[in-house]
């Protein structure tokens, strides 16, 4: 037990050191790499949030691109139009997106699988349309230009300084989600994933919990949106589309469903490849597609299956995958 604990502590230490050192390691590689690093961590937040919903609770969402945009706009409008501080706008963008997520989650109470995918996909179409429609508020395609936040008089202008802000948000998110998953609510989420009927019969309020997890996932995604907006300093209706929603799904599948390290791994790999592929010109999407295909074929359980398990003894949720959106097909056709 103690050796196992030591191992976990050691690993945590290594990960923490790597996370702290990353911006300085990447810095000499040029500003594109620091940018990709910062964006990767922003997408880590999205991936962890989406994995909470899809991996741990068994609900598919193609609406996360929209949640990101809502977060972007809320935060930008609050800071630009109302002159509120970023430090208030950041949590508020989570609150607003979370409330919206709860509303979007309501139909999810009755839907699952592809049906839920289409219902949420509609949201990814609607938000850019609405942003264009209300151009008085959003400035249409010309966009909004939110500023980098400041700590007192110190503006987080450099990629490195901003990295630590994003990282802090990610760490807080992971701590919250880890504790949530251990709590009764978290167990309810997973029970719903494994079997809605069984969960209901053991007294879990299925509808409420499904909407709740939607709300929490959306809220965290809203934070990522706010961070994105103030990082890029530009917000427009073009920012995130349904394709991005699919890309987020690809992140958690490639990384590993129902796994927080998996979400992070997937987000970093997919985002890095997606951003770096641009120098391949016409071949860029072939490269991204091929990486997705190969990753899924070579690591059907996600990249996270590569790591050495800290304790093989306990089969934790990470190895099981999610039951309602996913299905174990029996045995192979040809022996």
């Amino acid at each position, binding site marked *: 037990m103690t050796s196992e604990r030591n191992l976990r502590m050691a690993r945590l230490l290594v990960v923490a050191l790597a996370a702290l050192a990353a911006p300085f*390691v*990447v*810095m*000499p*590689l*040029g*500003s*594109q*790499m620091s*940018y*990709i690093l910062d*964006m990767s961590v922003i997408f880590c937040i999205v991936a962890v949030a989406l994995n909470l919903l899809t991996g741990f609770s068994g609900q598919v969402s193609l609406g996360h691109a929209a949640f990101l945009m809502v977060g972007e706009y809320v935060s930008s409008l609050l800071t630009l139009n109302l002159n509120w501080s970023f430090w208030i706008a950041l949590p508020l963008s989570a609150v607003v997106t979370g409330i919206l997520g709860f509303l979007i989650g309501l139909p999810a109470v009755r839907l699952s699988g592809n049906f839920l995918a289409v219902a949420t996909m509609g949201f990814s*179409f609607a938000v850019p*349309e609405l942003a*264009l429609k209300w*151009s008085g508020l959003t400035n*249409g*395609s*010309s*966009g909004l*230009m939110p500023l980098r936040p400041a700590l007192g008089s110190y503006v987080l202008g450099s990629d490195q300084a901003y990295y630590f802000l994003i990282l802090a948000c990610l760490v807080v998110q992971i701590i919250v989600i880890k504790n949530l998953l251990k709590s009764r609510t978290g167990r309810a989420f997973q029970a719903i994933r494994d079997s809605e009927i069984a969960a209901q019969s053991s007294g879990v309020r299925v509808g409420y919990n499904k909407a709740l997890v939607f709300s929490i996932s959306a809220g965290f995604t809203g934070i990522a949106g706010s961070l*994105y907006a103030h990082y*890029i*300093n*530009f917000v*427009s*209706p*073009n*920012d995130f589309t349904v394709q991005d929603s699919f890309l987020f799904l690809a992140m958690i599948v490639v990384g590993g469903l129902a796994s927080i390290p998996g979400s992070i791994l997937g987000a*970093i*790999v997919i985002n*890095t*490849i*997606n*951003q*770096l*592929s*641009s*120098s*391949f*010109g*016409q*071949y*860029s*999407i072939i*490269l991204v597609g091929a*990486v997705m295909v190969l990753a899924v074929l070579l690591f059907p359980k996600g990249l996270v299956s590569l790591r050495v398990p800290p304790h093989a003894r306990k089969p934790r949720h990470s190895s099981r995958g999610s039951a309602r959106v996913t299905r174990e097909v029996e045995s192979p056709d040809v022996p």
Partner: protein
Amino acid sequence: MQNIRVLAYNATNERVEFKEKWGGQLVKKTLKRSVTALTGLAMAVWSVGGSAAFATTTTKPHAAHHSMKRASYSQGASQTQIVLGTSGPLTGPIAAYGAIAEGENAYFNYVNATGGIHHRKIKLIMLDDQYQPDKAVANARALVSDGIFAAVGTLGTATNQASDPFLLRANIPVTSVATGSSALTVPVVPLRFGLEPTYTLEGHVMTRWAIMHNHIKTIGVFYQNDDFGKEGLNAIIQEAARYHVKVVAKVAYNATDTDFSTYALNMKRAHPQAVFEIGVPEPTAMFEIGMMQLGFHPQQYVTYVSGDPIMFKLAGKAFNGAYTDGWLPLLNSQKTATFRAWFKKTYPNTPPTLLALSGWVDAQVVAHGLAMCGNTLTTTNFIKQMNSIKNWMGADTSSPVTYTPANHFGIDAMYMLQANGKTQQLVPKSGLIFYHQVGSSLN
């Protein structure tokens, strides 16, 4: 890398030499470090991608062997070559607009084959952003890291809005932005130059001409639901109001639409005498076909974005008789012969379209600015020279190119054309119509 950029900002002789000498080693060092720092796939991609495998010319930068007494350089320029960069949708939903980057590439190939600019070869780095702002930002940063002298013909409003600040902060000129959105040229940003006519200019020119020559009394506008369509729409409404002509229908479409019969029906309901179409070719063609099928034949005015011979193929009969406006010469004219030859040479499988020609022209203007710099290839001098281009007709445009410190529009004249169904050609219908945007009430 940080060091390099700082040096590049205030490029003086010694410091540039320092960069030339040490830049290569620094890059090597960072490469080495990077291998140890990052692992796996990402790294492999970086090393290939970072080496700009798809850059167009293969000439490698040589260290400055001769100490240049009189020449001075900013980042990206040297005695032997000038590095330029572009970012555009080479793949993704509007990949057809990747033709602009291809046109630029074709032109620089032509320049390099005919001796370069004062014996300096042009190296163009082409990056794909899929029309996504976040990728455009990544590309801007990559271009800065690659040490470009200037960005040329970067496409899109949102993509430019997102990525330009980074380039501008790094003191890198953004030239010939490939969008007609005035948001990029009004107010003037010293380091950023437009070229294409703005949608505002076009809206005014086309509307005024329609009213003066064709005595249009009612107007319907079919427009793309974004900055492009809305800017055009606003200009049309403004200009029409001057002559007390009514805009009786405004029909917006979204880029992802598949059904245009509803829009045609909407337009038919309002029954305007003239229909202005501010959209990209495929939706515009489908809309025109839809109106034709409903038996509704208004006088059509098509934006220059779709004023392309390809419309004869896409829309067929529905395009006949439509008016459009242009700033480029006809594709089959003598003036574009070099373009056609070199584009074919560079891209044997791609037809030379107006889009490609506009990319070619984008490149011409930048090359002209560079040539005017002589041996003083510094950012400051480049901007100074660009701002001195006046009524220049050296590019393969039909309209002259003009920049002043207060005017970065580039082109402020267009001419009208009409689609002739019999010959399947666009036929010029007017001379150049100037519309002075600078200082006009439009701004």
